[in-house]
């Protein structure tokens, strides 16, 4: 039965995986974010991102498997370092 096999796979996984590998797998799956510092252009001021001003800012972004996110609530196109707050606000 497939879920027996799946449970066996996951039991085996959790009993053998190293912390380092587990973290890598979680980031690959988008469960954990991998923090990274990135230079981005903030093109509009916004109440929802009060700590950043217009212009170039060096901010912490969180890379998931599909998107970059800037705390608290931003997602932007993958591989882009340009954030247009007018589009996401």
């Amino acid at each position, binding site marked *: 039965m*497939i*879920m027996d096999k*799946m449970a066996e796979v996951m039991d085996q*996984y959790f009993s053998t995986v190293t912390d380092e590998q587990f973290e890598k*797998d*979680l980031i690959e799956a*988008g*469960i954990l974010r991998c923090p990274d510092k990135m230079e981005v252009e903030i093109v509009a001021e916004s109440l929802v991102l009060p700590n950043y001003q217009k212009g170039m800012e060096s901010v912490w972004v969180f890379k998931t498997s599909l998107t970059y996110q800037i705390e608290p609530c931003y997602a932007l196109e993958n591989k882009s370092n340009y954030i247009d707050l007018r589009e996401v606000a």
Partner: protein
Amino acid sequence: MIGHHGTHREFARSILASGFNRSHGEQWFGDGVYFFEDDPVEAKNWAIKIKGFGEAYTSVLRSTINSVNGNIIDLTKGKHWEAFLKIRKEIDENIDKSTFRNKIYGDGIALNFMCRQFFKRVGEPIDLIKAGLKHPGYDWADPITNIPRMQYQICVRNLTCIADIKVEEGF
């Protein structure tokens, strides 16, 4: 099994010409192509009400879905659901402490994780995931009946399972 997929008629044309593409991201059952199991009405409703395509611009595609290797996760079955819950809990417990937990983490991402580990260790893909969901907007306190309106969805992860795509009409 038969699956119905509601979409914009332009997308339907493209699918008929070149096949389906998998949706990626934080979909409810993970990456894949989504169908309603033998239910053109739900597929059409979804395209109109959830996706917002006008009725005149909506098409429903009918496909035959055959599991290639028998690897089906069927969350409408108690045993599958219980196993899923156990694994999901185990993942959750392992990441609860992390400050880098993704806010959008949910069932879809957890299922992607499981399927990926399964493929790495067994060498076979999970063909599809089936699950039941409450119909959007269904009122559990419906005064007339206790029988909920459900919809059964199939997330096809292995696109070679999809065959015989055609436009469904006259339902």
